[in-house]
C-alpha cells in the first residue's frame, strides 16, 4: 500500500508541475492573440480616449511578466482574482458554470458509461453476428457524424416537430431536478451518442483480447454460460484499457462540450470560456484553462491508479 501512496504523491506532484506549465502556455497564448481586452470590450465603438481610460483602469499598462506573477501570487493564496470585463469575482462566477457543466457531464456519464460497457459485452457475446454488427454500425455512425449535426437533427425532430423536449436548455435555480433533467434530455442524448462508440469499441476489443487466453477456454470447458464467462472472468482482466477510455471520455464530457453547449444554449463552462477568450479576459481564461487541465490530469490519474490496483503485475514494476 505504501508503494501506492508513493505513486499517488508522485503523480500529484507531477500534475501540479503540469498545471504550472499549462498556466504559462495559456498566458502566453492570450498575449499573442491580436488586440487586448480594452479593444475587445469597446469593439467597433472604441475611441482612443475610452481605450486609454479603460486600459489604465484594468492595469493593462503593466508589463506582461508582472501581470503574470501577480496573478500567480494571488492563485497560490487561493485567490483567482476578478474578471477584467465584468469586474466580478472569478471563483464565484466560474463556480456556477462549472456546476452546470458537471451536472450535464454527470448525467451523460451515468447513462453512457454503463450503456457502452453493456453494449460492448453484448457485442462480444454475439460477435460477428447481427447484434454485434448492428451495435458497431450504429455507434460508429453516430461518432462519425459531427456532433452539431446530430444536435440539429435532434432539435428539428424532437423539439420543433414533436415538442417533446426543449431545444434551449438554459437551466436555472428555480427549476426542480425533474424539470432540469427534462430540460437537458436532448444534450444528454446527443452527448451519449457521441461518446458511446469509443468506450463500446474499446470494451469489445479488450474483452476479445482476453477471450483468446487459456483460462477462458478452461471456463468454457467447465460448461459456464458465455455471458458469465465474459462478465466474471474476461471483463475484470480487461478493465485497465476500458477505464482509460472511460476516463478520457469523461474528461471530454467536461471540457469538450463547447459545441453542444452553444447549439443547445446550455450555460456551462464552454460558452463561458469562449466569451472570455474573445474578450481577452486573461484571468478568467487562465482559471478556466487550469480547471480544464486539472480535470484532465485528475481523471487520467484515476485511470492509472485503477489500472494499477486492478492489475497486480503493474504494482511491482521491474
Amino acid at each position, binding site marked *: 500500500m505504501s508503494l501506492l501512496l508513493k505513486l499517488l504523491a508522485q503523480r500529484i506532484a507531477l500534475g501540479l508541475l503540469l498545471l504550472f506549465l499549462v498556466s504559462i502556455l495559456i498566458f502566453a497564448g492570450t498575449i499573442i*492573440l*491580436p*488586440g*487586448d481586452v480594452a*479593444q*475587445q*470590450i*469597446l*469593439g*467597433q*465603438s472604441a*475611441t*482612443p*480616449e*475610452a481605450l486609454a*481610460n*479603460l486600459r489604465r*483602469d484594468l492595469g493593462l499598462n503593466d508589463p506582461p511578466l508582472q501581470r503574470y506573477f501577480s496573478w500567480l501570487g494571488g492563485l497560490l493564496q487561493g485567490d483567482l482574482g476578478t*474578471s477584467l*470585463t*465584468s*469586474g466580478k469575482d472569478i471563483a464565484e*462566477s466560474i463556480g456556477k458554470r462549472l456546476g452546470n457543466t458537471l451536472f450535464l457531464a454527470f448525467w451523460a456519464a451515468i447513462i453512457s458509461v454503463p450503456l457502452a460497457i453493456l453494449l460492448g459485452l453484448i457485442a462480444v457475446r454475439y460477435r460477428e453476428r447481427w447484434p454485434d454488427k448492428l451495435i458497431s454500425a450504429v455507434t460508429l455512425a453516430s461518432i462519425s457524424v459531427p456532433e452539431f449535426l446530430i444536435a*440539429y437533427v435532434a*432539435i*428539428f425532430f424532437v*423539439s*420543433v416537430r414533436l*415538442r417533446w423536449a*426543449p*431545444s*434551449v436548455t*438554459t437551466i*436555472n435555480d428555480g427549476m426542480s431536478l425533474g424539470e432540469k433533467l427534462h430540460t437537458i434530455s436532448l444534450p444528454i442524448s446527443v452527448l451519449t451518442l457521441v461518446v458511446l462508440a469509443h468506450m463500446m469499441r474499446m470494451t469489445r476489443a479488450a474483452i476479445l483480447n482476453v477471450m483468446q487466453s487459456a483460462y477462458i477456454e478452461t471456463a468454457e470447458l467447465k460448461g459456464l454460460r458465455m455471458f458469465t464467462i465474459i462478465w466474471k472472468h474476461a471483463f475484470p482482466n480487461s478493465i485497465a484499457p476500458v477505464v482509460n477510455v472511460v476516463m478520457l471520455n469523461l474528461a471530454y464530457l467536461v471540457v469538450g462540450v463547447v459545441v453542444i453547449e*452553444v*447549439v*443547445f*444554449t446550455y*450555460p456551462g463552462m464552454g*460558452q*463561458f470560456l469562449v*466569451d*472570455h477568450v*474573445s*474578450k481577452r*479576459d486573461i484571468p478568467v481564461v487562465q482559471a478556466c484553462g487550469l480547471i480544464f487541465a486539472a480535470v484532465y490530469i485528475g481523471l487520467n490519474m484515476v485511470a492509472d491508479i485503477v489500472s494499477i490496483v486492478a492489475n497486480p503485475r503493474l504494482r511491482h514494476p521491474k
Partner: protein
Amino acid sequence: MNEELKFLSRQVALGAITRRKFLGRAGALGVTAAAANTMLAGAVHAEGPQKGGTLRIGLQGGSTTDSLDPATAANTTAVNLIRMWGEPLVELTDDGGLQGKVAESFEASADATTWTFTIRKGITFSNGQEVTAADAAAMLDRHAGEESKSGALGLLRDIKNVSTNGRDVVIELNNGNADLPYLMSDYHLIVQPNGGKDAPDAAIGTGPYIMKEVDMGVRFVAEKNPNYWGDIGHVETIEMLVINDNTARVAALQSGQVDIIDRVPPRTAGLVARAPGITVASTAGPGHYVFIAHVNTAPFDNPDLMMALKYGINRQEMVDKILFGYGSVGNDSPINAAYPMYSEMEQREYDPEKAAEYFKKSGHEGPVLLRTSDNSFPGAPDAAALFQQSLKAAGIELEIKREPNDGYWSEVWNNKPFCTSYWGGRSTQDQMFTTAYLSTADWNDTRYKSESFDKLLIAARAELDQDKRKAMYADMGMMVRNESGLICPMFNDFVDAYTDKIGGWVEGVAGFSLMNGYAAQRMWVTG
C-alpha cells in the same frame, strides 16, 4: 372580408374562443392559415393591449462578459436590456422623430448652442428616489468626462458646460448643433441616480420594468415596475434568453420556447415565415454593409481606380444573393430613406464597361487586395466572391484574403487599406457623417479628408432652416458617393420573427431591431 370571420377574430381577441378554434373555423370558411393569422393579428391589435402574462424573448449578441453598466453596452442584448430598466432623456418616435422620455420637453436657443431639457415632473427611479435635473446632469458628466469609458463619449465631445436650473438641464455647446436631442436618445445615455456615478451597473432607472434575475450572457428576468409613469409595459414578466446560435434561436421560436427573436438569418427567413403561427417582420433601417478603401493609401488614392471599383460592383445581385431580398440597394453613400433629411440621388448601376474604362485610365496594374471575414457582416466572404466575379467582367482582378473573426475589429477594420465591414447607421445624417466621414473622426474608416465637406458639415449642424439643411446634406451625400473610399452595395433590413401568441407588433419602427428594442415592452400576450 366576411362578417363571420370578423366576429370570430374579435371573439379570440376577447378570449371568448381559442385561437386554434378560430383557425379551424376560418379554414372551414375557405381562408388560408396565413390570411387568418394576419386577420387575427389585426383584431388583436384593434382590441388594444392586454395586461399580464409572460413574454419570452430570444436574443443574439449577449456575452458572459457583458456588464449592466449602460456606458459599456455594445450589443443588441445589452440594448434590449437597458430598455427594460432605464430610459434616456428623449427617444425616437416610430417614424424617426423625437419624443420626451425622462425629459418631457426640450428647446434650443436661436443658434442651437444652448439646449434646455425639462425633466418630467414627479417620476421616480425604481428605488423610489425622485428624478432630478442633477441626476441627468451627472449622467452627462459621467459619459462625457475625461475619465469616461462610455461608448457615447464620441457624441458628447462638443459639450462645453452642463448646468441645472430647477427641473431644467441646460447644455451649452462649443458649436451649434440642431441635432443635439437626437444625441440624447443614444442608448448609452440612460438617466440613473446621480448619473450612475455611484453604482453604474445597479440597473436602477425609470424604465417600465425592474430586473429580477440577471445571469449575464444567459438569462434575464424583469418584472413590471408598478410605479412606471408611461403607458408601455403590458406584460407582467419578461424573460430574456441569450441564444447566440442562429439555428438554435430559430428552433426556439419554432418549438414555442420563446415568443419573439431577433436576427433571423435572411437565408432561412423565407422558410421560417412559412411555418404556421410565425410572422417574420422585416424593418428597413440605416444599417449598411460596406467595402471600404483608404483613399490616402496607394492604390486607392487613385480616384480612377476607386471609380472603377464603384462601377464594378453589382448591387442588385448582392441584395438578392446576400440579403435574400431583405434589404435595398446602396448608392455608395451611408444615407438612405431611413434618415429624416434624405434626398434622392441618381442610382449608380453596375457597368463593367465604365469600370474597365476607369481602370484603364487609372493605370493600375495587378490585382487589388480585399480583406474580409465572416463577422465583418453576415455573408461577407460570399459578397467578396460576388464582387470578384463582377469585377472580372470588367477585367479587374480582385484578390480576397480571408481574415479570422477574432481580432478583426482591432487588426483589420480601420487599419488595413481595403476590407469589408458594416455600419449600424445613426439616427441623423449629422451623426453618421460626423462619426465616419469628418476628417478628424476616429472612425474615418475610408480616410476621407475633405476641407469643403468638413465646413459644410459644421455649417449644416447649426442650420435651423430645414430646407437649407436638407440641401446641404444632399451635397454631402454626393461628395461621399463620388470622392470617398466607400463602396456601399446594400442596406440590410432588420429581420425579426414572432409567434401568434403575442400581439402589438408595429411595422417599420425607426432605430434598432425589435421595434428599436421596445418590442418586449410594447407587445402583449394574447393567449
